[in-house]
């Protein structure tokens, strides 16, 4: 059943969007607070997510847990020798994250919460990914 297949993603997305808003991680104010190290709110949420993630991934790897289709869960490792792309690209992302106060997930969550002007940064971000696609090969990686 195709519909049920999509329903699964819709339900997980709905829970994700609800939590993004209710935990206030979509808030420009919370991002400012995070970069000023004034409160543990954002660091606590991200830090706890990493702890849960580390435990979950270790359980999946050690027990070779399969996904719903019976395939092994594999996470392709990133090539750490490409340090330039992570530092330079990461810094560009950080500039945008602090400026806009939202990363890709929260952009859509803010749109859904009724802040319709978020369609502008969403289109702008898509343009950014497109320009990277054009310039990518000539940038240091």
């Amino acid at each position, binding site marked *: 059943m195709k519909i049920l297949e999509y329903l699964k*993603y*819709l*339900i*997980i*997305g*709905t829970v*994700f*969007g*609800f939590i*993004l*808003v209710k935990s206030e991680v979509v*808030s*420009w*104010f*919370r991002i*400012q607070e995070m970069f*000023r190290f*004034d*409160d543990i709110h954002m660091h606590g949420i991200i830090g706890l997510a990493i702890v849960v*993630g*580390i435990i*979950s991934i270790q359980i999946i790897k050690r027990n070779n847990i399969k996904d719903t289709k019976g395939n092994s869960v594999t*996470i392709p*490792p*990133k090539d750490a020798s490409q340090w330039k*792309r*992570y*530092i330079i*690209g*990461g*810094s*560009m*992302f*950080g500039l*945008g*994250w*602090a*400026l*806009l*106060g*939202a990363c*890709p*997930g929260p952009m*859509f*969550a*803010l749109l*859904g*919460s*009724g*802040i319709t*002007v978020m369609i*502008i*940064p969403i*289109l*702008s*971000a898509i343009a*950014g*990914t497109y320009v*990277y696609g054009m310039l990518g090969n000539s*940038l240091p990686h």
Partner: protein
Amino acid sequence: MAGSVLGSFLGGYVFANPEPIDLAASTITDLQALGINDFSGLVPADLISWEALGTPAGLIVLVVGGFLVGFGARYAGGCTSGHAISGLSDLQLASLMAVIGFFIGGLLMTYLIYPIIL
């Protein structure tokens, strides 16, 4: 994506929290010094609203901010969820480098560039 929009519609519109965000007092003081006055919603209407799109600061935040997020996420090969949460959870050195990058950019913007824009 459709799900997260639906979920945030429920969380941020249907069951929206009417109270302003309980920010650290020092953040509020710093932002007021930069000229942010409206602390009522999830985002400052001074910068993120259709009205703000017509101002130089709002235009930079919405258009340049969005562009950098999109370009940077592709360049770095991931964003907050991809590198900071999933990548660090998988103990990837590349993700640690990317997160260090996120903070280099974020701190530059917060302390050096935002005071110029606002």
